[in-house]
């Protein structure tokens, strides 16, 4: 005769085994990054010259490289790209892209948001507002940060992030998009697109950055535009 405790223990085992198998079956394993028909290559995606803007290869000064920070970035991102573009009128805009092919889990491997990583490097974030840039093909949600370093270097930032092929500003929207991909068995990739410039007049800098983004988006190849902005 089987003791009642043994019977109940077997029922408990069955329940736990069921959940273990369910979780195993529903856990996405395929990387969207590998399944993309057009693989993401940041350096090739961004044209070196477009509209009023030219890439300035000499301009990497003023960038603070922290070796510890650098090591972390290498670990969490599959690709990174930093460029400075200069306009015909001499305005400078810094672009920084970070792409992580595997956003599955393990929060340490997920995108780092500027409102977190700017302060970590000593910047103060004075203001953070979410907004959008409207395009004929859709709307690009962006966040605009007013940052200042050491009370002297004012660097307004416009940024957005991509979760798979959808632009999000993180938070629950990102989780929802990740959940949708996971139902198809896919692990999303993630991209951070950051545009910044130096200047005390935040409104003017944000306008400059928006102008830059508009010209850049217009110059991107359609498949890169979808991958980098979610716009068609």
């Amino acid at each position: 005769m089987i003791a009642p405790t043994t019977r109940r223990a077997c029922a408990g085992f069955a329940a736990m085994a069921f959940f273990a198998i369910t979780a195993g079956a529903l856990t996405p394993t395929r990387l969207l990054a590998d399944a993309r028909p057009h693989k993401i290559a940041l350096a090739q995606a961004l044209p070196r010259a477009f509209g009023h803007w030219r890439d300035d290869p000499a301009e990497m000064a003023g960038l603070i490289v922290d070796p510890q920070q650098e090591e972390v970035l290498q670990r969490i991102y599959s690709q990174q790209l930093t460029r400075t573009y200069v306009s015909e009128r001499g305005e400078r805009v810094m672009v920084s892209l970070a792409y992580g092919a595997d956003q599955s889990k393990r929060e340490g491997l997920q995108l780092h948001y500027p409102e977190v990583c700017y302060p970590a490097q000593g910047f103060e974030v004075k203001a953070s507002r979410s907004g959008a840039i409207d395009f004929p093909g859709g709307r690009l949600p962006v966040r605009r940060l007013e940052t200042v370093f050491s009370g002297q270097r004012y660097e307004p930032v416009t940024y957005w992030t991509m979760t798979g092929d959808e632009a999000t500003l993180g938070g629950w929207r990102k989780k929802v998009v990740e959940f949708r991909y996971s139902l198809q068995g896919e692990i999303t990739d993630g991209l951070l697109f950051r545009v910044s410039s130096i200047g005390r007049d935040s409104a003017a800098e944000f306008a400059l950055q928006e102008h830059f983004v508009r010209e850049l988006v217009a110059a991107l190849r359609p498949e890169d535009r979808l991958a980098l902005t979610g716009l068609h």
Partner: protein
Amino acid sequence: MSTDAARRPPQAETLPWLILAAGLACLYVPTLVDLLHGAWTSEQQGQGPLVLALSVWMLWRNRARIDAPGPRSGRSGAAAALFVLGGIAYVLGRTQGFWFFEVGSVIPMLAACLMTMRGPAAVRAAWFPLLFMIFMIPYPATLVDALTQPMKIAVSYVAEHVLHVFGLPIARSGVIIQIGQYQLLVADACAGLNTLFTLEALGLMYLNVVRHSSWTRNVGLAILIVPISFVANVIRVILLTLITYWFGDDAGQGFLHGFAGLVLFLSALLLIIGTDTLLRFAPRRDGAGRAVP
């Protein structure tokens, strides 16, 4: 039914426990492997294995009370509810990458096992090690991000003002401290989030082992650990600032950095013992009319 368990000698009950342990292994061995390769290797979540070991040890130590023979029987209904709750949390957490749900589900799952074997009394007997497991869950990144920055600024602010009072040439902008010719960046680790959680865990553990009868003292100490860990972190930042100022950058970033970490835990320990001693006298003064056993 209820007398059934009582009639059997304890040895006869090994098999059901083993069956349940096998079920838990199905769920949590993959999780444990992921943790040991991922979150727990980072400095920030390093207390995880220690907390797990302490929880298991406490469960084992109390096994006589938890698995006491007597006229208690398992409750299938309540156990099923706990299994389903834990299972949903587990599946959601594991498939969507929420450590909080995946690792947190171990608490209802263990409670379900105890409930099905021995009923609510066993769950009550094991409440502390079960809840203690909260501290082994890797903290959600959003929580860490939300707390780290304000704490860093607060630590830097207090450290700056203390050193300013002593007439040192110090200035601060955000989390950058300028002392003499040196510039220091107060790093994320200095915010003390990790220290806070580790101290809170160890503090609760201490309270549980010591088993104070006074609730004022228990709750008071548990709450006071928060400011204590803050003060300990301020002491560390001040110490590092002074080391850099007097002995140079190499000393501040070198072996003395590790030394400052040691000072952090020593000062926290002394503050906790000191506070505990003070709290011990508190109920005596006002507790005349209160039923303090």
